[in-house]
């Protein structure tokens, strides 16, 4: 078993590898071999970069190796919130564009609905937590 610090450092790169490999597998199964190779390559490079950065000092390294103190955890939380807002705005804009183009399939609208439900549910859940 790896020491805790090394395990924490490995957690994010492993997560990136799992998601990236899954996406690449899906692309490969869908017959898009070029995209699959690209995704796999980008995933591996990202995982290595995150692993290397996680070994350095500073706030970013602590966040990347899932070992933040309270201030770094706050930074991570805020960054996550900003990311969610940006994604929500983009999804809303893309849903509007898809409507304007007359498309019946509305994946962006579905994402907006999921985001709104997740937001509401998390508020209801988190307000009861310490």
């Amino acid at each position: 078993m790896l020491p805790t610090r090394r395990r924490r450092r490995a957690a994010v790169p492993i997560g990136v590898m799992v998601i990236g490999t899954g996406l690449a597998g899906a692309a490969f199964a869908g017959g898009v071999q070029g995209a699959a190779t690209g995704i796999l390559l980008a995933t591996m490079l990202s995982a290595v970069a995150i692993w290397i950065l996680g070994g350095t000092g500073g706030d970013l390294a602590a966040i990347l190796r899932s070992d933040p103190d309270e201030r770094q955890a706050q930074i991570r939380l805020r960054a996550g919130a900003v990311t969610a807002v940006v994604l929500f705005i983009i999804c809303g804009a893309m849903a509007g564009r898809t409507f304007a183009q007359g498309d019946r399939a509305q994946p962006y609208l579905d994402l907006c609905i999921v985001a709104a439900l997740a937001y509401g549910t998390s508020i209801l859940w988190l307000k009861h937590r310490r």
Partner: protein
Amino acid sequence: MRASRKAVGLSQGDLGVALGVSRQTINAIETGRYLPSLPLALGLARYFKTTVEALFDPTEND
């Protein structure tokens, strides 16, 4: 807080290790960019054998 730290001859890194936070967080507290949580503020006050009010009073020059 910087004055209290310097009075005992500690670096920001040493104090961070003693309290389980990063050097950057100690620096952010000292420069007023971050307000510590109550447990951390209490930990700092206990470490310097003083009170939270004395350590973080904005009217005092540190």
